[in-house]
């Protein structure tokens, strides 16, 4: 097993873990953490598989680089929404979950 394949499997594990956390947790900050871990797993999977036993793939790396910046922007936007929600409702969970 090459290094790329090993990290792809780590990515699979991280995505699964993140998905589990995302479903189980109710607190919105925790859900955001889980979502970010899931995203990191996906990035790892992409680059790991692209670099498995071949030359380093700059296309996959560029895509993941774009993805990381979009991920941080969406996290920041989610936090703005969360603060707004907390301010309006006083809760840090969504009403359907309670």
């Amino acid at each position: 097993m090459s290094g790329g394949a090993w990290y792809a499997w780590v990515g699979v594990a991280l995505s699964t873990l993140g998905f589990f956390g995302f479903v189980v947790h109710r607190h919105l900050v925790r859900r955001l953490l889980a979502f970010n871990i899931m995203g990191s797993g996906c990035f790892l999977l992409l680059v790991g598989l692209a670099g498995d036993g071949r030359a380093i793939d700059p296309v996959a790396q560029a895509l993941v680089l774009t993805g990381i910046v979009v991920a941080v922007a969406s996290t920041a936007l989610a936090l703005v929404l969360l603060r707004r929600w907390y301010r309006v409702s006083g809760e840090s969970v969504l009403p359907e979950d309670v």
Partner: protein
Amino acid sequence: MIGWFDLLLGLTLCTTAVGALASRDLFRAIVLFMVFGLLMALVWVRLEAPDIALAEAAIGAGLTGVLLLDTLGYLRRRYMARPGREEAP
């Protein structure tokens, strides 16, 4: 073949993720998530992707952590300003 360092790094990454997801204290969870971001930067170096490693070290460990901690501080402060709630945020 994978080296022992890759093996150890992957396992540590998974353990840190479990810690960040399962920790009862939210502050601790966020700090573990920042550690997770730094480890991810190491992984990118191992995968020979220095561009992503640079971005991840600045964003994943720094910016996201600051954003999350800032929000946590906000939630706690608002919670303190509001007596009579039984469940901590």
